[in-house]
């Protein structure tokens, strides 16, 4: 909450500065009352009300540590308190009153972060009444916000926590549309409201999509786009409009005058052009990703990550040069034409080329095993002669997605001062035989395999067959 307020203040300060710059360097207009800055609309009208739950100072020792930044400590220790990582090292002393956990034979890692999830907007049960992921009524729906679809009672959140060690995730609109709408980043902590799950201070994302989905959905309705060139044509027309909108609103917020007409969709695109909102772009094929990168240059924005990116391995050098990440599955392939060239070594080839890579799920079941998906990618890489150390591969599960979400200063590694989003695994997390034993979010123990009371049960499952069962 405090952090969000801080951001708002910063935004106000920026407006004031730009006014000064305008009056100083560019004295075309006389300083009259009309040059009073226009009133900016709220960038955060549905603010996070997340709060961390209480925890006790905890020292896990004698444990294998993957710090999430590529480092590994055997027989190491991790200490966290007051919701934050305090220290990691070989041996640490337990402060008075700390809970001490023996990690013999176990591994400790940062919590898993899934950059591509539809939990809440395509929840379980997957019935039409809860199918809220695609506003598939027009190819450009930058006006919709995923958080307004998220059902916080989705049982999938609990599974992702208990079986997958997932502590934060980005919920995206679906890929039917070229501009699917805004994403939202959540802490994986059940709450009564979506706002209370929102990751404090996380920037927004814009979901975009290329390829087969938009052209199929709208082509079948007999309207543009029905081809890949149609996809890009509509994209470009939309960005051109957004540039105009941004100019008008920038001017108004700087100089005042008549307030331009408000367009909720354009607010989001203006945010992208201003670098405040990150582009998360569903795209499979190498050639299409290259086109999108040029389109981003044409209109002056940056693609943060290509999602699915089944052919990213073919243009790993290009992605690196553009500082654009690839968020991929380990091995999904062959379910439609644009996934025909999927290979298991995708992640390893990206890493080898020095590109920013990460695992993602896009799946309520797959999100429960992202550690195993990375193990598959490591194995496929090793078959190709690319030997990536396990501890380095953990970046694909936490720090790289945190960076692509703009939350890496807060979470994604076990660096002192960061949120204590931590998983204790009952063995090597890259083994099929391993599961989370304990999961902490902001230092609060929210899952414990040995304590049935530390296992979340969503409202939907409460009182139904299997309620509170191991899942």
């Amino acid at each position, binding site marked *: 909450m405090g952090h969000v307020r801080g951001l708002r203040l910063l935004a106000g300060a920026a407006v004031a500065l730009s006014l000064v710059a305008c009056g100083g360097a560019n004295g075309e207009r006389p300083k009259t009352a009309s040059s009073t800055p226009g009133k900016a609309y709220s960038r955060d009208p549905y603010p996070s009300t997340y709060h961390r739950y209480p925890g006790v100072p905890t020292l896990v020792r004698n444990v294998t540590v993957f710090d999430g930044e590529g480092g590994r400590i055997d027989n190491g220790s991790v200490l966290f308190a007051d919701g934050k990582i305090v220290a990691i090292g070989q041996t640490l002393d337990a402060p008075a009153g700390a809970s001490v956990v023996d990690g013999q034979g176990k591994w400790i890692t940062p919590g898993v972060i899934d950059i591509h999830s539809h939990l809440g907007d395509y929840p379980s049960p997957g019935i039409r009444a809860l199918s809220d992921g695609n506003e598939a009524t027009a190819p450009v729906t930058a006006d919709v916000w995923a958080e307004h679809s998220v059902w916080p009672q989705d049982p999938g959140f609990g599974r992702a926590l208990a079986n997958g060690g997932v502590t934060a995730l980005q919920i995206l609109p679906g890929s039917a549309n070229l501009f699917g709408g805004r994403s939202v980043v959540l802490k994986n902590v059940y709450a009564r409201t979506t706002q209370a799950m929102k990751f404090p201070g996380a920037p927004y994302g814009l979901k975009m999509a290329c390829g087969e989905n938009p052209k199929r959905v709208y082509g079948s309705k007999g309207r543009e786009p029905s081809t890949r060139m149609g996809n890009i044509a509509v994209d470009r027309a939309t960005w051109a409009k957004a540039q105009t909108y941004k100019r008008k609103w920038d001017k108004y917020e700087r100089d005042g005058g008549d307030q331009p007409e408000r367009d909720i969709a354009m607010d989001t695109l203006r945010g992208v052009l201003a670098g405040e909102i990150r582009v998360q772009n569903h795209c499979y094929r190498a050639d299409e990703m290259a086109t999108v990168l040029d389109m981003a240059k044409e209109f002056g924005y940056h693609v943060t990550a290509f999602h699915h990116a089944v052919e990213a391995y073919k243009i790993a050098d290009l992605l690196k040069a553009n500082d654009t990440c690839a968020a991929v599955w380990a091995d999904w392939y062959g379910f439609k034409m644009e996934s025909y060239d999927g290979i298991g070594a995708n992640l390893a080839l990206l890493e080898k080329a020095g590109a920013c890579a990460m695992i993602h799920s896009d799946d309520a079941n797959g999100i429960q095993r992202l550690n195993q998906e990375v193990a598959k990618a490591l194995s496929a890489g090793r078959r190709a002669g690319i030997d990536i150390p396990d501890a380095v591969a953990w970046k694909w599960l936490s720090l790289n997605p945190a960076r692509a979400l703009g939350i890496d200063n807060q979470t994604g590694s076990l660096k002192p001062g960061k949120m204590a989003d931590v998983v204790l695994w009952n063995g090597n997390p890259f083994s099929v035989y391993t599961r989370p034993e304990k999961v902490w979010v902001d230092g609060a123990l929210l899952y414990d395999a040995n304590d049935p009371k530390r296992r979340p049960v969503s409202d939907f499952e409460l009182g139904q067959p299997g309620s509170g069962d191991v*899942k």
Partner: protein
Amino acid sequence: MIRALLLSAAALIAAPALAQTVAITGATVALGDGSAPIQNATLVFRDGRIIAAGSGVAAPAGAEVIDAHGKWVSPGLVAGFTGLGLHDANGIEESNDGSAKGSPFAAAIDVSTAINPTGVKIANERLGGVTRALVAPDTGNSIFAGQGAVIDLGDDADPVMRARAFQYVELGEHGARDAGGSRPAAYALFRDALTQAQDYRRNPATFGGRDRGALIKRSDAEALLKVIDGQVPLVVHVDRASDIRNVLGLTRDYPKLRLVLTGASEGWRVAREIAAAKVPVIAAALADLPESFEAVAATESNVGRMRAAGVQVGLSADGASGGEHNIRQYAGNLVAITRIPGATGLDWGQALASITSGPAAALGLDGEIGSLRPGRRADVILWDGDPLEIESQPVAIWIDGKPQPMRSRQTELRDRYLTPTEGALPKAYDRR
């Protein structure tokens, strides 16, 4: 490392395949019949069949001996139910033979005529250790999807091991939709179709199956008679506990039905009844979400609890977006949950059986495939480690005793792009 593997694979292919006796020695051998793996054991096969496997087995004189110390041997994986061989990619409608909504036929549909052994997925999945698949159609215009086939994934032109191996029917929510909107409609359709099949048997000449509006055609009737007579198993997809009870009750009216359940997400809630009915189940291992109102009680402990109650279980490959070979990951996860308090999984031997002999037994084929017991077809995988562990991979594969190539389109793509940038010529010129 890769070069060495390629060379050895090439050498294997060059060796005379049949008539040659092969002995794999020193390996950890997992039979796939539910037993624990055997250390330092030998496997012998000849003429496409397993001769012997165990720790006291000697390599016969003249056998090609493969020293496999430090490696593991298992039967090839049996993946069911799947559309493998029926499509190039599910979403490519033009080549997808998985279902036929516009067809007047349903139960008569026989997928064996559609299997394409050169589809790229066959080689990709074979390289992941899958040697047999239970190929099922999807429903089109009826609750009856048609007749499935058992195929091998061998690098040859003859993929169909058994055509018309089972009939597949939907009797849960999916079936309700197929039948026009409700479960009772699905049951009405089911019973009426079977009744009409019997009418056809009594008097084929007067059977009206050639009429445009006939519920079933003559060839549908012929396919359904084999189900009624128990000549082919009836695979029923249901998930809800109450649906499972209803399906088990069908044998009161059709006593010869050879039922097989698939899906069965809530099977654990009726596990004793399933076991008592001796109905095998091929279930999703890791379906633990209430994905629909018929799977509210879904849990990863489902398979383990059914097995503990005495149900014959196998794992389903359904929904494996990364490919059917991921059933071994599913099996490994069922071992993993044995360490979670309150969960029920499978021990290692049962877990391997759930992806080898289990699915084979569900269709009555465990005498032929799914294990390394003597007499079985020699579908053999040599692994560089524990076959259920993610990092392990096959290093040699035999199907019906024939060594298989260790390449696929995926390895071709990988090798072309080991370095993404072009060299002296475009990537299109870069191939083995």
